[in-house]
């Protein structure tokens, strides 16, 4: 069979004879008819995904005021938008937080409210020019009052996404949701069998100019997304569409507790089945898509990979990690991904949505997603810590500890065992409290035993965050035998930061 063209398919949409199925229905069809048979039978496979896509936002043109203003800074409902464009153009990004409400409300919520037709308060400031004399502007608008409102998302629709868990001993609040300590839960994202790019992993039909379903409107893929990484099957897309045509159901502001805001974006992509190869690719199932489970307990760029899993395993609700069954949660909505693939199928069958011919394919293998080039060494604990640390043997009296602290003129005194291992820590404040309560004899009764520590190779930023989290001002630095190598204080870190 010679294959079909987009024109053939669009002619069938016009005369109502087009045969559309969703990517969930396709695997069975290919299994039954084979790729050739399926390519003959099926014209379009619809995909869908609905999840948090942080790299999202919208360009807005507010129309000129009188007297006119060239906005230097602008806030929408107290969320700052980027105004370094022409006079009254701005870009509102999903993750920018409200000045007054913080994480509860962000750019994503502004976009949702715009789509929902709600009023948005605008405040802008400027330096004033001969052509744009105005310096301050306050007004209230709805989406109907402004000129263009164009969703423009630099990175959407990840082909698949790594899975998160947390092996550390404290709860983490991340863009993958709450991660309970000690691998208490697992979270994942992505639509698996319905994922657009997973159904066309060689980008034969998805590329520049592909018409897509974008949050209820007809939008377009405009190019590769930022961080597009075809080499590792982490392809992404840049997309745009008219905010004014969108449906609130598929544009939803979100807050990840302790992390910030993001926008749930609904994307559906039709895959025209032009040949047997494309048909075969759309037969992908949840069992065929594998992702790494990462330990978010390690706050570094390369997080340890605990194992690999398929979307089929993730969707079963439990996965095995080191011999334990752990409950999984999706962060994206498969329910709504399905609704999107279904809605797109209806639109095509009704003759109101026509797939387009690609202008250009997304770049394939050979594109490498690089880590950041950082100049200068990242300082580590070893660079900043005090290496001469006075310690005290456990079993001594509070009195003795007080003397040591007084003589040394410092605040934190690590307590060590006979084998020179760290067993506790005592501060000047602990001693003051003990004296006030008349508990002067045994040090062991008043020391803190669960000591928070650092190791020499850790980057300063990570240790600074640890100090903040535990609300303490110093950490003993220990080696792997818990021998005290040094001590690092928040003062040392502040001094270093001040020099940077």
């Amino acid at each position, binding site marked *: 069979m010679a294959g079909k063209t987009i024109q053939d398919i669009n002619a069938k949409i016009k005369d109502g004879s087009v045969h559309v199925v969703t990517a969930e229905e396709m695997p069975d069809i290919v299994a039954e008819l084979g790729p050739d048979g399926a390519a003959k039978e099926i014209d379009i496979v619809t995909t869908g995904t609905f999840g948090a896509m942080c790299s999202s936002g919208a360009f807005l043109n507010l129309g000129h005021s009188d007297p006119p203003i060239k906005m230097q800074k602008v806030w929408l409902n107290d969320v700052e938008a980027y105004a370094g464009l022409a006079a009254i153009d701005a870009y509102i990004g999903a993750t920018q937080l409200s000045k007054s409400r913080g994480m509860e409300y962000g750019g994503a919520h502004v976009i949702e409210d715009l789509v929902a037709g709600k009023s948005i308060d605008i405040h802008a400031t400027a330096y004033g020019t001969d052509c744009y004399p105005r310096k301050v502007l306050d007004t209230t608008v709805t989406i109907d009052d402004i000129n263009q409102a164009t969703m423009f998302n630099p990175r959407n629709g990840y082909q698949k996404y790594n899975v998160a868990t947390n092996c550390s001993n404290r709860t983490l609040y991340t863009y993958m949701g709450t991660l309970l300590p000690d691998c208490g839960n697992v979270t994942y994202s992505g639509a698996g069998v319905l994922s657009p790019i997973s159904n066309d992993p060689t980008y034969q039909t998805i590329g520049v100019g592909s018409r897509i379903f974008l949050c209820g409107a007809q939008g377009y893929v405009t190019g590769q997304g930022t961080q597009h990484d075809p080499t590792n099957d982490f392809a992404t897309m840049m997309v745009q569409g008219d905010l004014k045509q969108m449906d609130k159901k598929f544009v939803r502001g979100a807050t990840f507790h302790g992390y910030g805001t993001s926008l749930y974006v609904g994307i559906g992509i039709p895959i025209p089945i032009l040949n047997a190869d494309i048909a075969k690719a759309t037969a992908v199932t949840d069992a065929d898509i594998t992702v790494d489970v990462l330990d978010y307990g390690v706050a570094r760029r390369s997080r340890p990979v605990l194992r690999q899993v398929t979307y089929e395993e993730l969707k079963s609700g439990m996965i095995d990690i080191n011999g334990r069954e752990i409950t999984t949660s999706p*962060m994206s909505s498969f*329910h709504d991904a*399905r609704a999107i693939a279904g809605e797109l199928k209806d639109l095509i069958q009704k003759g109101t949505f026509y797939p387009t011919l690609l202008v250009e394919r997304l770049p394939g293998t050979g594109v490498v997603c690089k880590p950041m080039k950082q100049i200068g060494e990242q300082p580590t604990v070893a660079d900043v810590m005090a290496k001469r640390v006075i310690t005290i043997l456990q079993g001594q009296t509070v009195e003795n500890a007080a003397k040591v602290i007084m003589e040394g003129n410092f605040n934190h005194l690590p307590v060590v065992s006979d084998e020179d291992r760290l067993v506790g820590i005592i501060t000047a404040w602990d001693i003051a409290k003990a004296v006030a309560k008349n508990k002067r004899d045994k040090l062991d009764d008043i020391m803190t035993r669960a000591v928070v520590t650092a190791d020499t190779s850790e980057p300063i930023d990570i240790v600074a965050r640890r100090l903040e989290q535990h609300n303490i001002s110093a950490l003993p630095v220990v080696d792997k035998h818990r021998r005290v190598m040094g001590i690092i204080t928040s003062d040392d870190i502040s001094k270093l930061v001040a020099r940077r």
Partner: protein
Amino acid sequence: MKITLHVTPDITPRPLIAEVILETGALLNIDRADVKPKGGEVVIDVPHDECDRVVAAFKKRGATITCLKLPIIKDDDECVNCGACISVCPTGVISFRDDWSVQMDVDKCVQCGACVTMCPHGALTVGK
């Protein structure tokens, strides 16, 4: 049926719950207790048919009790059926139906609030 016992400093020294169990013979199950020196609350699971008697027994002793009709409330307009809340719930209240929409078996809820924090869409609130 869940009830919340509001603990105040004046009743903390008494074995209130034990007294109520002895008096009513009801099998009470403490789902969650959050009591600090200044007071707090204890969520207690009570067999349906004994609820009235148990509540009366607590009230007789001067305790403040509220009955939780709906321990956890989901706003269906905000919920996108992602299921993010599922994995943080300690008692398995939340699950997917076959169509991937989210359902709640509210009788199991102990009002820990973990799902409220997890929900990206502010769809959940703990009932009062």
